[in-house]
């Protein structure tokens, strides 16, 4: 056993650092969980990232990992790492609120496959996290459980819908969190809170036991500190699941082995249109600085045009909103007042969209994917964009419930993330700077289908030459 790590340093460890330290015998899982629980209890009153803390169960799970290590039994890839999950992943018999009043007492009868896989890998699940109601907003507002607050500045949005996941990882409450992403709900809180978030290829990760929002665009994935964390997390949760017949059968590569730490030879495409149009100057400055850093480290940067984005953007808005409206139709008839104003308003619009245009949006998804790949990913490894065009907005200026005039500010948050849900491409967001108010800016990297290893390799190599991902908010 190596020298033990002091308890004050434990919450500073990333997920892989914590799991590796545990595997080497440098720290006990129980100590890791105690440190996380103490920090949450001391500081989450400001952030409001947690819905239900399962302290006793987490400590029992940690002690079981400690005993396994002492007995010399094989350890899982995430053994000892404290994590939590967005409150929309089902655990049989336990309340799963989905951030809503309607499901405040909902107890599912199944357990999500991703939770089973994380349990089997030895991750210590400490409970459930705040989120946008039914995962349906990009800002982090929640009328029923209270808004989640950005740890960098409590007046600002965390991004949504995985608000507690992004805020909690940024606040060093836990090393990793499960989020979900239908229009940016992993990448937005990752960006606004200054952490790393990965949305995988559509169908890459099982959705069994996960609250549906849009059958065509829902994705499961991690919010963590580093690309290496995301690689290890993805290795655990990816792959076909017989309980989710829509999950892909493509082999899962060794994502961590793909992390070379080098940007040499990486070919980066930057779409001249759409992603930077109307972007705030501090965002553009951080984005261009990130590109320059990548180029200086050996990557090539090429500006390309992608005319397909006009159609992609239009159909993106159509498909997920119609599917969300269909899923919520019974509750919208029976309990409309149980939804927050911004959510029922958004769902309502889905019922006005004509069926033939929805079918058109689905039918053209494959051809538009082929077209976008031809425009932006043929001869290139990744497409780079700012994850969010605007600087981090305040909770007040995106609060539709308080003032409907905030509608456009609210909807604009996810403009750059939504297209990649329609396209189904693996996409990561990593911190690439801070603006003049000390709030984070995100860099988004997308690659061809099932090329998670490519975006992880690029993101990890960028994190080897920068330290944005190491910065922590002071709470």
């Amino acid at each position, binding site marked *: 056993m190596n020298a033990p790590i002091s308890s004050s340093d434990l919450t500073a460890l990333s997920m892989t650092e914590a799991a590796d330290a545990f595997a080497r015998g440098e720290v006990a899982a129980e100590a890791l969980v105690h440190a996380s629980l103490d920090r949450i209890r001391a500081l989450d009153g400001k952030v409001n990232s947690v819905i239900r803390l399962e302290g006793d169960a987490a400590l029992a799970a940690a002690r079981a990992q400690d005993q396994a290590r002492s007995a010399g039994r094989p350890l899982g890839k995430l053994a000892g790492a404290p994590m939590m999950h967005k409150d929309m992943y089902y655990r049989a018999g336990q309340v799963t609120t989905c951030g809503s009043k309607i499901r405040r007492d909902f107890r599912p009868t199944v357990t999500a496959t991703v939770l089973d896989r994380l349990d089997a890998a030895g991750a210590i699940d400490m409970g459930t996290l705040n989120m946008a109601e039914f995962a349906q907003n990009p800002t982090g507002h929640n009328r029923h459980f209270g808004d989640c607050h950005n740890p960098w500045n409590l007046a600002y949005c965390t991004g949504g819908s995985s608000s507690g996941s992004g805020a909690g990882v940024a606040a060093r409450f836990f090393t990793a969190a499960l989020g979900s992403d239908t229009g940016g709900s992993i990448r937005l809180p990752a960006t606004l809170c200054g952490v790393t978030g990965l949305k995988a290829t*559509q169908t890459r990760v099982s959705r069994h036991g996960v609250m549906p929002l849009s059958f065509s665009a829902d994705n499961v994935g991690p919010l963590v500190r580093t690309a290496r964390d995301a690689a290890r997390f993805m290795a655990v949760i990816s792959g076909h699941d017989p309980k989710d017949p829509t999950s892909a059968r493509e082999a899962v590569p060794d994502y961590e082995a793909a992390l070379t730490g080098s940007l040499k030879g990486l070919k980066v495409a930057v779409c001249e249109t759409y992603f930077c149009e109307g972007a705030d100057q501090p965002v553009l400055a951080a984005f261009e600085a990130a590109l320059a850093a990548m180029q200086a480290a050996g990557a090539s940067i090429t500006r390309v045009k992608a005319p397909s984005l006009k159609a992609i*953007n239009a159909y993106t808005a159509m498909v997920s909103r119609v599917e969300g409206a269909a899923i919520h139709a019974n509750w919208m008839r029976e309990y409309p007042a149980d939804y927050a104003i911004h959510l029922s308003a958004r769902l*309502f619009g889905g019922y006005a969209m004509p069926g033939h245009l929805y079918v058109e949006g689905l039918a053209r998804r494959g051809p538009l994917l082929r077209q976008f790949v031809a425009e932006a990913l043929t001869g290139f490894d990744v497409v780079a964009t700012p994850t969010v065009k605007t600087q981090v907005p305040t909770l007040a200026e995106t609060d539709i419930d308080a003032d409907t005039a905030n509608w456009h500010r609210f909807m604009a948050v996810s403009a750059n993330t939504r297209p990649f849900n329609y396209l189904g491409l693996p996409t990561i967001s990593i911190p690439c700077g801070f603006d003049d108010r000390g709030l984070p800016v995100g860099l988004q990297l997308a690659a061809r289908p*099932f090329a998670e290893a*490519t975006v992880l390799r690029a993101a990890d190599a960028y994190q080897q030459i920068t330290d944005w991902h190491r910065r922590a908010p002071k709470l």
Partner: protein
Amino acid sequence: MEPSLVLPMMEMIRAWSGVSVPNAAARHGLADHLALIAELEALRGSMVFEDEPSGFEAALRDCQEPAR
């Protein structure tokens, strides 16, 4: 001023789905559809349905990275 399209859309939704307008923000959201309608109008004629069977999952498989 609210676009003239909003009231007929509200009626249509109630008739087809049985869902009534929940609040003023929902009317604002319907008015916002005009921008999406304009985007879709601009696409008319630019794309055609393919005669051959096609699927999104097949496109995902076909568009993977070439073997290195």
